[in-house]
């Protein structure tokens, strides 16, 4: 039972030490690692988003330029044809077909070509539809081209009822204007923009100034539908804007917008935030993985190291404890040895008396047998002798009991102790001896001292030792006096043993509790007594202090906690 308790205490201590080592060894590197990681992630993220932004701006800028270029080239194509031809000749069917053929060979984007007179009548047409003869004077594009001489329309349905847009130019021939109009293949135009890819989700599309799609949006947004996110776009007529926005579904995205001068459309390049951040997420995941794997390795190593270290510390501690208890045992043995001589004397005296009494009884008995005397006096003498033997037996009994109390194996057993009774018992053990040496012991312990909780047997050892020391110190004096006094406060009881002996040299005073330090001649003292006392009292949660003045005396004060608090 006892050993298991000890073992549990040992493992508990072991785990505690290991935990302390582990936390101290791991905590600092972990914090540093976290700081390093977060700093790296922060810079990486900043850098990554900067790069994504730059990329988006570049794509938007390039393609805006590309489309502007496309518009201006197509416009120039038409202007060139208008410049090269007269209103009369271009209306001829063959002529227009030839021109359209040449036009398509320069750019497959042209879907058809039509000629309009000053009133908006469609006078000639080359293309897949039959549109001649229709009047466009009320058409939006016609009104605009009359004013501006060059007009590029938004995508619209028109008569043919399919989405398309047109480029129209105006030519004034002899003061009379006529107009040339070409339809751009939406498919072809779409491809210019739609095939742009940035990352996985990055896409580009065009919207007009009202937010209507002019090209398809790959992630869902058909031609001529209104872009639901249009309100969130930021734009600047002169430069590319980049910003982080939220789309109508609440997804976060990175955008770059640029305005096309010729049409007032917006080039939009957009990438999902998480797509853009995917390298970051990957990096963070890898970092977390590494931290976990590395951390696991570090924790494992630290765990083994800490275990080893804690094990060694626990062992060392156990050894120290063992040493301490051995020291206590050794001190006890030395005490027993020193005491045994005195004890023998104490016991032999009563034995001597008993021997004499038995001889006396024998004598009287013999007298009675021979009939010499059998009077009352002889009987009284015999009774007296028998009483005396009983008395001496009691005396021996109390001595052996004292010895037993002293020698009992003492695991700290905490019990309630009344200090002045305890001191009384201990003093009784040495008083006779002391009186023989002409030493007076004054017990001045307050009988109203509160009870203390402590180990009586160990305290007995300590006080016996201190008393014997005090007696030793005053042995050679004529008026040797040992006083035992007491004090008390809220927590502690103080018991002082004062002698008026030779005192202790200040140099020796420092070493007085050191094991094997002794001032007694070789063979007379082991130097274990006070160190053992010190160990015991400390173990009982108290303290021993000493003050001394040469040729005046020494005071040993034992401070004991009122409530038992064994030092773990």
């Amino acid at each position, binding site marked *: 039972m006892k050993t298991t308790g000890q073992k549990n205490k040992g493992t508990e201590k072991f785990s505690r030490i290991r935990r302390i080592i582990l936390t101290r060894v791991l905590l600092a590197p972990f914090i540093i690692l976290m700081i390093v990681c977060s700093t790296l992630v922060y810079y990486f993220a900043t850098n990554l988003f900067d790069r994504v932004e730059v990329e988006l701006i570049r794509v938007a800028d390039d393609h805006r330029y590309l489309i502007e270029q496309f518009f201006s080239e197509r416009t120039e194509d038409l202007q060139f044809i208008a410049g090269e031809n007269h209103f009369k000749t271009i209306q001829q069917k063959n002529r227009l077909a030839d021109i359209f053929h040449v036009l398509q060979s320069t750019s497959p984007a042209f879907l058809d070509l039509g000629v309009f007179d000053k009133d908006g009548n469609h006078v000639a047409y080359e293309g897949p539809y039959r549109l001649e003869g229709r009047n466009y004077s009320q058409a939006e594009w016609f009104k605009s081209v009359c004013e501006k001489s060059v007009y590029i329309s938004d995508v619209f349905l028109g008569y043919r009822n399919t989405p398309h847009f047109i480029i129209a130019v105006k030519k004034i021939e002899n003061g009379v204007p006529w107009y040339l109009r070409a339809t751009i293949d939406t498919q072809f135009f779409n491809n210019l923009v739609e095939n742009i890819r940035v990352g996985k989700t990055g896409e580009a599309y065009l919207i007009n100034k009202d937010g209507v799609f002019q090209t398809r949006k790959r992630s869902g947004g058909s031609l001529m539908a209104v872009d639901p996110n249009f309100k969130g776009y930021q734009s600047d007529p002169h430069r590319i804007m980049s910003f982080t926005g939220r789309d109508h579904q609440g997804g976060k995205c990175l955008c770059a917008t640029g305005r096309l001068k010729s049409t007032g459309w917006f080039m939009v390049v957009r990438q999902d935030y998480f797509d853009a951040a995917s390298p970051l997420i990957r990096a963070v995941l890898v970092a977390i993985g590494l931290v976990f794997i590395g951390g696991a390795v570090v924790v494992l190593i630290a765990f083994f190291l800490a275990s080893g270290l804690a094990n060694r510390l626990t062992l060392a501690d156990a050894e120290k404890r063992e040493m301490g208890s051995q020291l206590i045992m050794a001190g006890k043995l030395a005490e027993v040895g020193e005491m045994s001589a005195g004890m023998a*004397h*104490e016991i032999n005296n009563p034995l001597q*008396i008993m021997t004499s009494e038995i001889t006396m009884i024998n004598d009287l008995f013999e007298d009675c047998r021979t009939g010499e005397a059998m009077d009352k006096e002889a009987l009284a003498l015999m009774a007296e002798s028998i009483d005396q033997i009983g008395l001496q037996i009691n005396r021996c009994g109390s001595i052996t009991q004292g010895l037993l109390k002293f020698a009992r194996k003492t695991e700290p057993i905490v019990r309630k102790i009344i200090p002045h009774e305890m001191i009384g018992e201990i003093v009784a053990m040495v008083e006779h001896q002391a009186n023989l040496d002409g030493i007076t012991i004054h017990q001045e312990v307050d009988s109203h001292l509160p009870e203390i909780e402590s180990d009586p047997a160990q305290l007995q050892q300590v006080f016996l030792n201190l008393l014997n020391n005090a007696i030793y110190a005053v042995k050679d004096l004529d008026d040797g006096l040992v006083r035992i006094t007491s004090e008390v406060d809220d927590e502690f009881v103080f018991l002082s043993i004062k002698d008026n002996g030779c005192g202790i040299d200040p140099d020796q005073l420092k070493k007085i509790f050191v094991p094997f330090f002794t001032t007694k001649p070789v063979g007379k003292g082991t130097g274990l007594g006070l160190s053992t006392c010190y160990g015991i009292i400390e173990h009982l949660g108290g303290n021993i202090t000493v003050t001394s003045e040469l040729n005046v005396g020494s005071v040993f004060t034992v401070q004991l906690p009122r409530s038992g608090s064994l030092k773990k």
Partner: protein
Amino acid sequence: MSNVQLLIVDDEERFLKTTKALMEKRGIATKTAASGAAALRIIDEAPVDVVVLDVKMPGMDGEATLKRIKQIYPLIEVIMLTGHGSVDSAVVGLKMGAYDYVLKPCDIPEILEKVEGAYTKKQAMENKIRKVQVDRMISHPMAVFDKNGED
């Protein structure tokens, strides 16, 4: 034998009382003293042949008392009575001129025997001294006067 004057010195009153009774019963004139100082007083008052002396006593202990007795009355034989388990203190006593030692506890015949031995030795010693004095007196009759003068 019956002429021996015995003094027992011990701090145990009861021991003194009983032993005195036993010794006197055995025909030995016995005095007792409870301390070294008392013992010296008694020796001063009346002649004593043998002293049984306890080693351990309050005040003046056995060794000190032995020393004093041997100083003043070197012819008195002293038997040390020791309660110690070891014979160390007895050896010390013997070196200081004690006749013998007795370990406590001991019975009366043992003490008696040693007392007789001590008394015999003392008598032999006294006889020897007397003889020497007589011899000297015979060879130097005048010296008697010197000696008397010295005394």
